[in-house]
């Protein structure tokens, strides 16, 4: 894979989520499938989903964005990174992270990934802010 080409993004998610998020990115930035390609796992086996991802990635470095870390999309994506060194996976994406990606994708993976993680994490918050301080009351599951 060429290191000069801008990084491509493939967004894998359950249901129609990827298409909705990609549409939101396009609405906000005007940047569409030249940067971020949506893909649903609906009805696809892991093998078929892998083939669909590779077809979209082509011969470019790419980030595979996934919705949830323990889902089948993430499993397929992580497995592909074992076989294709130009790929990386970012899971648990949100809109801020994707916006940063399409605006900064000329950066290489090494610079881009930490930046995206930082932006995505920083974008999560709540109002009123004091509710966030109630973390000790949260229950798991």
């Amino acid at each position, binding site marked *: 894979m060429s290191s000069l080409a801008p990084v491509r993004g493939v967004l894998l998610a*359950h249901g129609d989520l990827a298409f909705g998020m990609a549409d939101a990115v396009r609405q906000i930035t005007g940047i569409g499938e030249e940067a971020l390609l949506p893909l649903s796992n609906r*009805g*696809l*086996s*892991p*093998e*078929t989903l892998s083939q669909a991802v590779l077809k979209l990635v082509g011969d470019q470095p790419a980030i595979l964005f996934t919705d*949830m*870390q*323990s*889902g*089948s999309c*993430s*499993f397929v994506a*992580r*497995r592909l990174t*074992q076989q294709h060194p130009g790929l990386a996976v970012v*899971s648990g994406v949100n809109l801020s992270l994707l916006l940063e990606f399409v605006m900064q994708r000329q950066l290489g993976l090494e610079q881009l990934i930490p930046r995206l993680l930082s932006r995505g994490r920083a974008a999560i918050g709540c109002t009123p802010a004091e509710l966030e301080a109630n973390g000790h009351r949260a229950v*798991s*599951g």
Partner: protein
Amino acid sequence: MGIALYRVDERLIHGQVVVGWGNQLHPQRIVVVDDGLAGSGWEQELYTMGLPAGLATEFVDVAGARERLSAWRNAPETVVVLTRDVATMRRLGEGGALAGEEVNIGGIHHAPGRQEVLPYVFLSRGESDELQALARDGAEVSARDLPGTRRVPLDHLMLPERFR
């Protein structure tokens, strides 16, 4: 407690299992029965990344799983047993080891040689025969992708005659 779900799902540990069934059954352990994965540490790591804290996982081959079925059934925790294909579940249940147990078909997707029987279940002739063999060995086979959806019994999962 004990084994709350036996499920055939090509995706093994994924959203429907962890969230959909997980919120219904509250398992403390997921057992993946698969000869290939049992010996592949890196693949096991891929499957277990991001799982909720407190959910243990175990990857065992079919022979090991047959030896441990009784222990899982009597465990003080709730266990989910997964295989990625019908043949593995059939081997697990050989000789009546799953007699009286309900085996859930949760996700077998389109592939060459398979025909659709439900939107989330595609079967080859061989897989259809394996399911019937599993039932003959005493398992109650049905399909259901999520706890809230309709349970489809085995006799509704048979391939149309023209594919047999």
